[in-house]
């Protein structure tokens, strides 16, 4: 790691997650997916439009004291398909993985169709199949391609 490494432009973290190679402009949506809005007291660093050799500009998000769940990584992959997840313990990267688009996303995205049964008072979780472009509600078939982050359940 050199001194001009983009990851060093924001402070290093001791324990937590560095989400690197996030599609430029999506950092705030990544925070939305993680349910981070600043009120929870989490220590977060964000780099936006950072030069990258792998993709045309990237965002970087560092979250102290939190390791992402698989469900969070699955949804992340939909808005940041090139992202890498670095799990940090005691300042060292102990695991580095590329996100992989899942076949389905369960329970984390609200169907934008207000008349979908998953938005009724019924014991059913939202479930979306992941398409090449966008996701499709397994119940009402609505295809969602834009504004995915806005549909993440609070």
């Amino acid at each position: 790691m050199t001194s001009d490494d983009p990851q060093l432009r924001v402070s290093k973290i001791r324990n937590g997650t560095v989400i690197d190679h996030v599609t430029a402009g999506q950092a705030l949506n990544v925070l939305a997916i993680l349910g981070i809005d600043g009120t929870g007291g989490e220590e977060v660093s964000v780099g936006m439009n950072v030069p990258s050799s792998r993709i045309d500009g990237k965002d970087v998000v560092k979250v102290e004291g939190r390791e992402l769940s698989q469900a969070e990584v699955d949804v992340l992959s939909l808005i940041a398909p090139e992202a890498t997840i670095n799990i940090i313990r005691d300042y060292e990267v102990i695991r580095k993985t590329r996100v992989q688009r899942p076949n389905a996303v369960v329970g984390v995205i609200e169907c934008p169709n207000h008349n979908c049964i998953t938005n009724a008072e019924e014991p059913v979780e939202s479930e979306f199949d992941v398409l090449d472009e966008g996701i499709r509600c397994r119940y009402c078939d609505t295809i969602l391609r834009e504004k995915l982050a806005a549909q993440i359940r609070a």
Partner: protein
Amino acid sequence: MRQGDLVSATSLSRADVETVLDHAAAIAADPESWRERHAGTLLALCFFEPSTRTRMSFDAAMKRLGGDTVDMGHVESSSVEKGESLADTVRVIEGYADALVLRHPSEGAARMAAEYVDIPLINAGDGAGQHPSQTLLDLYTMREATGLDEVTVGILGDLKYGRTVHSLAEALTEFDARMHFVSPRSLRLPRSVRYDIEDAGGEVREHEDLNPVLSDLDVLYVTRIQRERFPDESEYREVAGKYRIDDETLAAARDDLTVMHPLPRVDEIDSAVDTTDHARYFRQAHNGVPVRMALLDLLL
């Protein structure tokens, strides 16, 4: 068709459709020999939205197979009014009947309900989603009139909210059918149906005006503008009455054009068309009985 359920037309393969239609034709040719086939079988009719044709033809179909029906009745007189969930309702009804027919105003209701019951469940319409048993009788009627391959079909009217349209268009991708979709811009096919058609290798040909394609059509499938599904009455009024099929319209059509409609109609087909050779919509409605008899016999 998933084992035991009919929730969506997307699950119907060409072989599934042909099996049901062939079976329906056999039943229609000799209805008497099916009279005791399902004696003692009970079919539950659960309609959370109004229905005449679908409810009555399922009722007739089950009884003509020797079985009987139990009807949930009007929503206002059921426990739904007390706030009971659909999931609870179908789990209770499962104990009273051998199969269940469900119509519900929410898209995806049938798929969710099917996850809660083990008896066969037939989607008789879920909001603006799907109506696959209507599609089977539409295809039966179309096959009688024109065949299902090398056929050009125009689908006219409310393509956005019309659930019969969604199911029919997706099922026709299993056949060598060329489809034209005619509607106001605001009532075009939803993204998911377009996706399924294109994913199956079909082409979505869209028009606002019927006239340029009318003379190419073997079948014209007319639908009602679904007033009850519009979020705003003013949006409905903008498109209401946009299309009306009458003798003058049909003067430009081929002599052998078949006109179909899932019914009920409001004013989109003039009653003068009823007595022409083009009109197939009442026969189409009558075909609901043998086709639903075939479907029940195959699912039960």
